[in-house]
């Protein structure tokens, strides 16, 4: 997709401001600084070179040292008063401050002291520059890892070393495996480690809260080419198709679960289609969302979950007596 004009203008202005502060930067250096290709930097310089104040005679234009540019070094000789760095818009400032705060509060377990300090100093400087407008957004990230596990994951990612994991899956079966870590994905609900699992010789996502123990091995992690969309929960075509009919309050399930399709019904309820590879995962989902679930199809799935629930109620014995005194209902949603 072509770059938006507004994004390009910001970079054109950014280049002038940067060159004003760094005399004689190479094209490659500018490309790295602004995260674009060298070709793009040269196209930007060409544009700046013909831009200026009305009249557009030579002394009206932004100018660079030509002989130095021929050697690949960009030297700004005339800025037309455009060297002031552009302030952040309100939304830009808020968005950046909110995610830095979330990194500081939520990811500190996965950062060593030096890195945690860098997050804090960046946050302090940005907050000072943006002012108090940053309070309108509040984001929290959930690492949900034991401190030793978080530290081991962080070390292995930072140093590129293999991990030995003890992991328990959705079916409550634990196993040991060697994993080359690729990345640690953290969102507002929980975290996942994307890694190359040597036990299955493939890319796997591990829920961090199910990693029972993690040890950093001496072996370096091998580099594995990442499949397109790696680390994303894209619902695949494998697995059984299951339809769950949910009450309006169950909207969070559609948001936090990789669903194939959502159908809104007239009465405010809705249906989601899931492709289910792991029956244990589905059983857990249905049990934990049971308050919002109206129906599950096919009926065999509903029967299986209901029988699991009955077995659990039976195990509670007298504590599950239907005539028990029920405490107040704490569940006060919005």
């Amino acid at each position, binding site marked *: 997709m072509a770059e938006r004009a507004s994004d390009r203008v910001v970079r054109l202005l950014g280049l002038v401001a940067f060159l004003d502060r760094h005399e004689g930067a190479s094209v490659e250096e500018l490309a790295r600084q602004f995260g674009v290709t060298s070709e793009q930097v040269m196209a930007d310089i060409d544009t700046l070179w013909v831009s200026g104040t009305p009249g557009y005679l030579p002394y009206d234009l932004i100018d660079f040292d030509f002989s130095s540019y021929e050697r690949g070094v960009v030297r700004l000789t005339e800025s037309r008063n455009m060297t002031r760095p552009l302030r952040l818009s309100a939304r830009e400032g808020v968005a950046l401050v909110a995610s830095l705060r979330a990194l500081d509060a939520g990811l500190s377990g996965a950062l060593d002291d030096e*890195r945690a300090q860098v997050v804090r100093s*960046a946050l302090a*400087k940005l907050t000072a520059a943006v002012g108090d407008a940053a309070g309108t*957004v509040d984001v929290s990230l959930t690492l949900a890892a034991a401190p030793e596990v978080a530290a081991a994951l962080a070390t292995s990612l930072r140093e590129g070393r293999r991990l030995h994991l003890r992991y328990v899956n959705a079916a409550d079966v634990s196993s040991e495996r060697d994993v080359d870590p690729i990345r640690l994905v953290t*969102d507002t609900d929980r975290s996942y480690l994307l890694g190359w699992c040597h036990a299955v010789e493939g890319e796997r996502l591990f829920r961090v809260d199910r990693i029972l123990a993690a040890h950093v091995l001496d072996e370096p992690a091998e580099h594995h080419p990442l499949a397109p969309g790696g680390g994303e929960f894209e619902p695949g075509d494998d697995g059984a198709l299951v339809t769950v009919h949910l009450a309006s309050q169950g909207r969070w399930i559609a948001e936090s679960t990789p669903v194939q399709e959502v159908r809104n019904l007239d009465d405010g309820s809705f249906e989601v289609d899931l492709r289910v590879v792991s029956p244990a995962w589905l059983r*857990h989902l249905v049990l934990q969302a*049971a*308050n919002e679930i109206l129906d599950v199809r096919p009926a065999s799935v509903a*029967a299986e979950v209901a029988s699991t629930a009955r077995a659990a109620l039976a195990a509670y014995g007298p504590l599950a007596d239907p005539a028990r005194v029920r405490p107040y209902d704490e569940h006060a949603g*919005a």
Partner: protein
Amino acid sequence: MATSIDPAERLLNLLIALVNTHGRMTKEQVRASVAGYADAPSDEAFERMFERDKDTLRDLGIPLVTVTDAGHGDDIGYRIDLDAYALPAIDLTAAELGVLTLAAQTWQDRTMRGDTARALTKLRAVGQGPGATDLVAGLAPRVRSGGAVFAPLLDAAQARQVVRLTYRAASTGEVRERRVEPWQLIARRGGWVLLGWDRDRGATRSFRLSRIEGSIRAVGEPGAFDAPSPEQVEQAMAAWREGPARVATLAVLPERAEATRVRAIETPPDAPDWSQDPVVGPLVVGRDVVHVAFRNAWELAEELVGYGDAVLVLDPPDVREHALQLLERAAALAPAPRVDDDVAVLEVERG
């Protein structure tokens, strides 16, 4: 032959002209003198182009101000407020820019992602030159998109503008229009929530963004309400905050629920001996009594019911009641097969 000028180039030239103008520039001066505008084939095309360019500059955070001058009749001129143009002095190291890059990539929402990318470009212009960027390699924090209503709600909250929104109530499924003073957007487990003052109900309310139907509309002027006091925000947030840490007591079948056991804490000194309890005693036979710390009773109950009969909540009663309620609802999803009832119970007893 005049070649058509790139929109980015036209915007840049407009900005340079306005920054360098003495006093102000009128629309006519812009059209006659700024590179790119002579391309406009008609008055109407020029008007559209100029309006769009003004909006774009303002969206970028550039303080483009309108000046009317009595000496010039009622024609309107434009200039840049240079006092409000510049980023305050900020001195960022290469490492800090690396962290900011990570922060900018956190947003999954397209509009917000575009905003943070531009913010990063602005900060890179004043940062140190390129340095080690792998400082936070391998970390991928993510904030889910709040949908199409997110950016407009954020703008309204920033501008303190009242919004009209159509909301589907969680409890009843009833759809109704609300007028809300938007205070704060918070990302919590299960998605985005708007905290604000519901003008129709005269009370603090929170709204899940996923239950807002259609688009939202800002109504009235910016600055229509005062910023909420810290106490008001605190009160509105209370429902979304985690409670104080408490301890739950579980009876767990051997070698099961390891992901929960890994969080086990030592038996609190005041914990009763459950095996001696006349009601609970028989239930814990053949099970390990495990203590875990928790903050949210519902979250813990939802986690534990996933283990079926492998985990029983003994205490506290509210967590146990939540778990039992979920199990009862799940049990009702399908009728109990009458003939097989005994078999099911037998299976439970075999563990």
